[in-house]
Each structure stands twice: as C-alpha cells, then as structure tokens.
C-alpha cells in the first residue's frame, strides 16, 4: 500500500475545522493504514492463511472532561467531513479555538527494517511452518501435536491536532510461535517456543527458528516427567525474561493514569513514598530498538520516552496519555495507545521491566534451601487496581539445597503484586526482555514487552493441583 493513499495537511485542516465548528478545546485526527498476514498450522497442515488491509481514521474532540469520537474506514473527503460532524455533535462548549499551523514533530529514533515482509513469498512462510512442525515432531516420538503460527503486521499512522501537532510513525511487528504437545498415557504437557519483535524478516536470519521448535518439544517432553507441585508458602526464584509479565499485570496496570485518576489504584497519591524493596527499579521505555512496545510517537502523537516508575523502591511517576494528563493537569508520558483507529487511546504500558541488580543468578538459586524455580509462567489473572494475582507455572523445578532438581507441574503462584515488590530480597545482574510475543489486554489489545532479571521472592504461596491446559 502506498502511504499517499492516506490524507495530507490540507484535508486534516478542513476536518479539524469542521470538528471544532460547534466549539471545543482541542480536536485531533488519527489516520491509520495497516497490513497484516497470519498463517497458522495444526495437524501438520497450513490451514488458515489470512491477509488484510485496514485503513481508517478517527476524529476526537475534547470539551472539558468530555471527549467525543467518531471513526470510519472510508478516507474520502466526504466521509471524513461526516465523521468530523459526528464528533462535533455533542458540542455545547462555548470555547472557540483555531486550528494552528502544523509542524511535523521530529524523533531521533529509528527502527530500521533490513528485510521487508515482501522479501519472502507466502509459500516460503508456509514452508517455514511445516519445517517447524517436522522439527518438533522429530525431536521426540511423544510429541503428538504441533501448532505453529506466523504473523506480520505493518502499521503506519499519522496524527494531526488543532494545537499544530503533526506526527507520523511506522511500526512493523513480526512473530513466530510454536506450541508442542507431548503425550504419555493420559498425561498431556505443552511446551512453547517463540521469537518476535519490531523487526522485518531479518529476524529469521538472526535466530534459528528451528531451535524454537526443538525448545518447545523439549520443554513439553521434560514436563511429562514432572511431579505434582508442592503447596504452601515457600521461596520462589523467578527466571529472567518473561517472568516480568507478573509485575506487568500485578503492578504495572495500577500505575496507569486512568486507574490513578479514578482513585481505584493502590498507588494513587503515593508518589515519593517507598512502595517497593530498595532493590527494585521499575521502568517503562518505549524507545528501545526492536521491542514490541516501542514507537517514535504514541497514538496521541506524543514523543515516546523512558519513564522511571519506581526508583530504588520509591514511586516516581505514573503512565499518562493525553486525555488523563489533561484531566489531572500533568504532562503526558507518551503512553497513549490504541488497538486501532476504531478505539480511543488510553494509558498503556509499552516495554516494562525491572532493572538489573548486582546478584549473580547462580548465587540466588544457591541461597535457597528448598523452594521453587519458575522458568516459564503460563496464563494468569490479576486484579489491576489492587494487584492480587494468580499465575500458573508452565515450566518449573524444585530447588533443593541450592540446586535445581525435579521438574514440577500444576503449580500456581498466588499473591499481591505490590506486596511481592516490597519483599524481593535479591535481584540478578541478568536483565532480559521477553522473546517477543507480549500482548496486553485492557479492553483493547496492544503489543508490549516485559522483562526482569532473576529475582528471589522470599515467601509466596504456591498453590493449586490443577493441570495446566
């Protein structure tokens, strides 16, 4: 698709003028052009091959605390004028503002794509899925089912607002995942392998996708020998990387400004207070290269930034989008995100992680007499405002006398995110971000990254005897 099919300055000016014709404080137009391809394999067959283009625009008008929104997937001038009139409908505001001259916002960030998605035919991408399937099945005869999925997503956005802001961004996401199912008797276990990020097809040259298939098969097969998890309170060591999802769900959401403004978050009104162990520094950073949560400008057109949320245990800042920042008279932190032009932005995390500490990860394991080592977390649930959580452990091991021993199954971690943050006793020097499949759901889906170094939680309730699906 050529971006020239999207609108330019002159159309934007006419739309914003129409949107403000009944009054209002600020008007904005958001235009998006997106092309996605999804291929999926099951039963050793590529069954679903779907490609689509989504193009559309949304117009938002602020009147005090009210915002109105209208969107369309027809970018013709006539349709956009109708959308602007719809967005202006609720206007009762006496406030009259002028549309200022646009100036194109600059970002120093580059997220270059070396090998565009078009560099490979759909057939080759399908063949890759078949190869992954074969590789996982070849690994062990107990691998009975394999699901593999490839997806690419190119999204171009343009934003103009009546204060003269004009921002453009392009985001390219690729992901490849393999789920292997291994069976012995009635017992079925699952292993996952994945790679992805804000990259083009060069990802496939840099990492060997077949290694992910073997990894998925290996972890499924290993879990067949797992014994039921011990229950009760015990020390837990969380492996670096994906474990950060627990803190994303159980602490990160409570730092989003909408929960703060509503007063429902445990962190409301606590900036400057010690809310976590002094070993903990929690960061949200949308400027990192190659990460799923990165961008040059957020979906309000605000430049992305590195935000220190918690510094050495002290709460420093929340995550703000434009609407919540206006409401609280604060500066946005570039965290306004939307699933597509069909939605209003809201404050969302980007790439959120706990910074590296000083401990040697091996020393962390050695410090535990008897406990649980969590290599991979499965699904989970968290109450976003209070931070209570339940997460299943999809790959875990017993720690006995400072060493990893038997694999365990059916474990879950139960606790409260902010409480766990206070209790963390050791933080490794091995910060790692997830392997590139993070998706956050808060009414709208947005891509994110999570991360952490190896951590020691001295006490947490390990519960449940339920099988992991």
């Amino acid at each position: 698709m050529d971006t020239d099919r999207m609108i330019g300055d002159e159309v934007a000016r006419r739309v914003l003028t129409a949107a403000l014709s009944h009054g209002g404080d600020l008007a904005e137009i958001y235009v998006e052009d997106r092309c996605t391809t999804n291929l999926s394999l099951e039963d050793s067959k590529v069954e679903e091959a779907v490609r689509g283009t989504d193009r559309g625009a949304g117009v938002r008008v602020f009147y005090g605390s009210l915002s109105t929104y209208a969107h369309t997937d027809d970018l013709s001038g006539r349709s956009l004028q109708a959308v602007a009139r719809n967005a202006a409908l609720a206007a009762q505001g006496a406030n009259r503002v002028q549309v200022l001259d646009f100036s194109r916002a600059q970002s120093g960030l580059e997220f270059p794509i070396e090998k565009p998605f078009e560099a490979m035919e759909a057939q080759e991408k399908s063949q890759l899925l078949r190869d992954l399937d074969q590789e996982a099945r070849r690994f062990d005869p107990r691998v009975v089912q394999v699901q593999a999925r490839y997806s690419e997503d190119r999204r171009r956005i343009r934003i103009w607002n009546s204060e003269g802001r004009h921002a453009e961004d392009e985001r390219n996401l690729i992901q490849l995942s393999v789920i292997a199912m291994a069976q012995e008797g009635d017992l079925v276990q699952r292993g996952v392998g994945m790679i992805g990020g804000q990259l083009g097809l060069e990802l496939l040259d840099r990492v060997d996708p077949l290694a992910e298939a073997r990894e998925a098969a290996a972890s499924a097969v290993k879990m067949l020998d797992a014994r039921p998890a011990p229950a009760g309170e015990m020390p837990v060591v969380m492996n670096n990387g994906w474990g950060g999802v627990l803190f994303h769900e159980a602490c990160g959401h409570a730092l989003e400004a909408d929960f703060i403004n509503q007063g429902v978050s445990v962190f409301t009104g606590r900036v400057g207070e010690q809310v976590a162990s002094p070993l903990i520094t929690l960061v949200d950073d949308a400027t990192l290269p190659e990460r799923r949560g990165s961008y040059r400008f957020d979906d309000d057109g605000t430049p992305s930034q590195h935000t220190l949320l918690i510094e050495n245990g002290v709460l420093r800042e929340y995550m703000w989008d434009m609407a919540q920042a206006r409401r609280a008279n604060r500066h946005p932190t570039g965290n306004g995100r939307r699933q597509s032009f069909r939605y209003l932005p809201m404050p969302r995390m980007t790439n959120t992680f706990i910074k590296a500490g000083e401990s040697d990860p091996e020393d962390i394991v050695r410090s535990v007499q008897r406990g649980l080592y969590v290599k991979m977390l499965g699904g989970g649930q968290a109450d976003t405002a209070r931070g209570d959580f339940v997460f299943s452990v999809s790959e875990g091991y017993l720690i006995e006398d400072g060493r990893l021993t038997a694999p365990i199954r059916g474990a879950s971690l139960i606790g409260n995110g902010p409480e766990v943050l206070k209790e963390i006793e050791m933080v490794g020097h091995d910060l790692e971000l997830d392997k590139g499949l993070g998706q956050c759901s808060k009414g709208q889906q947005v891509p994110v990254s999570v991360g952490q170094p190896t951590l020691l939680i001295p006490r947490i309730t390990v519960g449940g005897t339920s099988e992991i699906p």
Partner: protein
Amino acid sequence: MEYLRLVEELAERASGGDGEAEVIIMHSRTTMVRVNAGEVLEMSAADSKGVGVRAIKGGRMGYAYTSDFEPPTLDLTLSSAAALADSSDPDEFRALPGMERDLVENQDLEVFDPELSERSPEDKVAFILAAERAALDHDPRVVATSYCSYHDHTTRMFLANSHGFAGSHESTGVVAYLRAVARDDSGQAAGLGLGCSIFYRDLEAELVGCEAAGKAVQLLGGRPVKTQRAPVIMDPFAGVEFLSFVANALTAESIQRGRSFLMGKLGEKIASARVNLVDDGRLVRGFGSAPFDGEGVPTARTSLVAGGALEQLLYDTYTARRDGTASTGNAQRSSYRGLPYPAPTNLYLLPSSRRVDELISSVDTGLYVTSTMNTGGINPVNGDYSVGASGLWVEKGEFVGPVTGVTVAGNMLEMLHNVADVADDLRFIPISDSIGAPTMLVQGMTIGGT
C-alpha cells in the same frame, strides 16, 4: 442494492473459473455513549464497511480482506486470496456449500428497527443518564456507578458465492448496561444491570438502573460460607455464562479438534431429562437470527439436547463434511476480517412452567447465584468448572443472607446430569453469542468458602 451486485461480481471473478469463491461485505453503523455521575465522558460514532474474499481451490483455502473499495485494491484483494490459497495445504473437506437447498423465503424475523436511525445522539445521552439516575435513586446506599454505557448498531451483510448464492440481511441491536456500587457500614458491593433489545423503544432505562442497584444492595454485608457440597440455583446471568461453555463444547470444531468434554458422546445421555437445548437461527426477535448463515446456508431450528440426550452438534460446512453430514447453518462471521467458524445463533435452555420462587422454596440449604466471575478455572477438555460467585444463601426455601467471595465448582458433565429443575423465566443475555437460560437448579455443587 449496489453491494449485492458487487459481491456477486467479485465472487465470480475470484473463483477464476476452476475454483470456488465467496465474498462478504459487511457495513455497520454503531454509536456509543459512556456516562458517569450525570456527565457524558465519551461519545463515539462509527461507520465501517469492508469486503472479505475466501478462495478455495483443490481443497486449499485463502482469505483476504480490505476496507478500501477502490477497484485496484479490490483486484489486489482477489489475487491475494488466491495466492494465500496456493500457500496453504490441501484438505479434502474444504469446500463452499452447494446450492442443493433452497433458501426459505423471507419470513419476517423482526430483527431490524427502522426507527433506530431516527434517534438523535441527545436521545441516547438522555436514555443512559436516566438509567444511571434510576440506579442512584433506587436506594440511598447506591453511591456510584461504573461502566455505565449505551451501545447500538445497524448492520447490513451481503454475501455471494461462485455457486450462485447471493443474499443480504440487515439487523439492529441496542444494549445498555451499568454496574451499581452500593456502600454501607459493612463495606461495598456491586451489581450489574443489563438491557438488550432489537428495538430502541423496547429498552427501558429504569429497569436497567434498578436491576443493577437491586443486585448491588442485596449483596451488601455478604460473606463467604463454609466449604460444603450443596445445590446451586443459577439465575439467568449465571446460567448463561455456564451455557456459553457448554455451547462451545457443542460445536463440531471443538469436538473434532479434541477440545470438548462432549467428545464421543453424540447419541448418549449427557444431561438430566430436564435439559432441552435448542439452537434456533430463526427465532423471531432473536439477537442471532438471520435467514442464512455466514456461508449462505439457510438457518434452522436445531434440537441439540432433548430430554438429556445429545442429538446434534453445531456445524458449518467444513466440519459437517468432515463428519459426513450436513451443515446446521451455524457458520458465524463476527466481521468481514475473518473466516467463518461454527458457533451458536440463538442457543437456549428450554424453560418450564415452574415459577422461580417455587424453585427456591424447594431447596433446603443452598446458594442462589446472581453473579459469577470467570477466574480461568474452566477446562473445556475434561469439563472442570470453577468460578467465583456471589448471591444469596437459601435455608428452608427462604433467602437468609448475602454471600460473596466463594467459588462454585463442579464438572460440567456432572452438572448437566445434576440439573434438577428449570424455571419459566427464560432470558437471553447476548454478551458475546446470543444465549438464553431460565433460572436453573443444579444439585451437588462444591461451594468453596472458609
């Protein structure tokens, strides 16, 4: 209608002569209003349309879509669907429905409200503000609302395939809901109120507000009970949530993929004699009613479970061909952006003539559940069911006090066998699919509390 001709022409071109093709256009208009504390927070209006092309050749299937109707983009979408078909693997059961059945001609399903388009945004704002007002005025202990919103849609669907099928269908829907928050010395409780209708004029703001307020207030002071086995009475909200898991297990896709606790049970008794489950794509005023499904197959009334025996599954064309049977007209399309998949149209548990109070008075000790929360404790393969629940405790056939913070657990197959009674208050709660349940009594559930 112009779009009908367009889908016919595109289907013909996409088939390329030796393949099969199906083209769908969906055009929808939606509005939404969200309010809080008497103020409008958000209003949105959307007009969206798009076209999706499914191409099948030699059992290989590809799908492409776009929202851009300019001829070059449409050409690209057709060739994209064909290229994707070439890159997928052949499956002998992949095919479009043939034309062996005649479309039953337009019985009026009463699913379109011609007056909806005449309603102004001001009407809709006033409506949802009145619902919130009704909740706050219902009882002084109701202190706030959340998620208070109004939604409506008008959707037109145009479908054609290269075997000569062409049809269109239009429908409307109006939904309003809110959560009321009640507070007193004992703490805080919340309740959901919901109103859904095809016709704007049938929706009553006061009912939505009062339902939410009534549920919130009655849960004030709720506490967990002791862990025990006891009967559970599910109100239609709790019943519909339970049935949505059963409905998923009843799709042929779940069964063929080994993801259903009803695998291998066709023809067997899977429930008590009180359980009669029907899927009716032609239910008058049904939220999921249409003359034909997402592949152009005529919809029908299908008896799934009769007197407790599993008689039939929900089929689309692909899953039916795999089982050597006929589609039941259950191919659904949630948007033009995706492939059809088998799902319910209007699926419901048949009511009886017994009143709800008769059901309750028949219970010696048990829990009347008015709200459930899915906490991830549902396993579709082995049927394990565990949800968070709140409601009212029943002793000697009377409500004796609120219960919150408990779990209700069982196995879905056992629960179906343990349905001891159903009432006369069938209600559809079309949150995702259009599913309806009357109040139902299930014996022998595990209530997890203190």
